[in-house]
């Protein structure tokens, strides 16, 4: 008889000892009877439907649940569990997964929103704790006082949250409030529960400290789902340079790239790129740079690059136009504004 076939019918395939065989058998029985208890619930884990045994915490902490899943249904630190229309965050796991998977999940109470470098609005549900238990809520001196409050916020470690740095600000308040309280990230503890090196996820705890509302920078924006939310330090996603449509006579598309704000006293490089109607880069185009300005702009040309500089600080907030000319026709232009170095 084929030994592999024999091991399969004995539920021992892939095992090396009787102990391992017994373990497989135990796990199979667990999976078979996993739904026999009232505690087993249908949940979504990171967007995928799963079965999870949700057991009340023995200490009576209703915001904390012990969770178990079948051996083959692993969950990781930082996974989100949607259960009962609630957002729960897995904040503890037993890394020993011989039998079933065990851990704890905590009830999240606030969606933390911020804007990443590219301008995209990121949202992560956070488990929050009071990190200022004995403060009166204000701090200062005889002359002025400001708010004093700190939240501890636990969120998953992922590609967006790892980019969070101190001083980034968040609105943290009830949804729909006219002007929410804002908080500044003052600390991030990313390696207290980080199991990513063995593939079991991770969570980080942020300290968010009260910061003043900035009417010029903090904006209410509309998300894709139509909801209006506050975003701290909101900036419009960078406008990509708009290529002028290919000219019928040249079939060239021309794009000038470079900073639209030129700090006075500093050389900045601007580059032009030519592409044909098929999108292929054209490298041998005969063109000329042209600067249209009411004030002196220092220019150093080097092929497809031009370096520009304005030395007169009185020109701050004034603009000039940089053009690319081919056969006496303007094929691309960029308006550059002189800005302060501060």
């Amino acid at each position, binding site marked *: 008889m084929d030994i592999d076939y024999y091991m399969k019918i004995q539920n021992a395939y892939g095992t090396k000892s009787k102990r391992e065989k017994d373990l497989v058998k135990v796990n199979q029985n667990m999976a078979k009877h996993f739904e026999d208890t009232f505690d087993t619930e249908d949940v979504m884990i990171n967007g995928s439907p799963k079965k999870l045994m949700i057991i009340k915490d023995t200490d009576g902490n209703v915001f904390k649940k012990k969770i178990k899943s079948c051996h083959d249904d692993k969950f990781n630190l930082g996974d989100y569990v949607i259960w009962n229309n609630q957002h729960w965050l897995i904040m503890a796991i037993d890394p020993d997964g011989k039998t079933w998977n065990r851990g704890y999940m905590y009830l999240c109470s606030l969606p933390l929103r911020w804007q990443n470098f590219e301008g995209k609005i990121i949202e992560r549900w956070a488990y929050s704790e009071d990190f200022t238990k004995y403060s009166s809520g*204000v701090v*200062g*001196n*005889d*002359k*002025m*006082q*400001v*708010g004093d409050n700190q939240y501890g916020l636990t969120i998953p470690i992922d590609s967006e949250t790892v980019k969070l740095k101190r001083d980034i600000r968040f609105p943290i308040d009830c949804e729909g409030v006219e002007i929410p*309280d804002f908080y500044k990230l003052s600390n991030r503890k990313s390696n207290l529960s980080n199991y990513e090196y063995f593939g079991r996820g991770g969570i980080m705890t942020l300290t968010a400290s009260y*910061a*003043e*509302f*900035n*009417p*010029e*920078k903090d904006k209410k924006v509309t998300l894709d789902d139509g909801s209006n939310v506050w975003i701290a330090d909101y900036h419009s996603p960078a406008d990509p340079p708009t290529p002028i449509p290919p000219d019928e006579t040249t079939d060239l598309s021309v794009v000038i790239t470079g900073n639209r704000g030129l700090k006075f006293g500093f050389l900045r490089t601007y580059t032009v790129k030519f592409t044909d109607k098929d999108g292929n880069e054209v490298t041998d185009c005969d063109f000329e740079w042209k600067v249209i300005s009411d004030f002196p702009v220092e220019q150093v040309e080097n092929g497809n690059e031009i370096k520009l500089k304005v030395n007169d*600080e*009185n020109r*701050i*907030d004034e603009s000039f136009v940089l053009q690319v000319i081919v056969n006496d026709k303007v094929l691309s232009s960029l308006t550059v504004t002189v800005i*302060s*170095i*501060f």
Partner: protein
Amino acid sequence: MANSSIVGDIKTKVISEIIQDEDLFRAINSPTISSFEASDKLVNTHIFRFDQNPDVVEKTITFITLQVHIPRSYSDNTFVKAQLEIFIISHVDCMKVNNIPKIIDNRNDYISRLLDNKFNGRTYLGTEDDPNKLQLYGSLDLVRNTEGAYRKYYLYRQMVFETKDVNDSLCDGGKYGG
């Protein structure tokens, strides 16, 4: 007049002049008072006639406090010295003057420049159309203009002007009075 009457008089005239100055109004850049016609609302929200902002600051703002001190008399007690002390305090996020074109000074420096231009060397206080201008004995001179950090995230500039007033003890029921 009583020596201490100059305390209130200076504060009243200086504040009155500040809130009628559109450049200063723009420089203070209130997040809640956008119309110059409502510049009187700066008083007790952004301009205080004592050394304290009594409200918990919940927005990034610039505010000004005014104090008048009479530290000592001089000239054989003929005159008293009166000091006008102005603190300009800004949240660090307000330091860039991005609401007024072409200003590269930081906000505290810019406001102090405007106040210097407005008050330094003046021999009276009160606007041109003020029938009750406060005539000074001598001029109001800037004697100190320093800066520093007020507390975390707040920067200040401190300006001290000096002028003099006749010592009250020379008049009325004072030492030489009748």
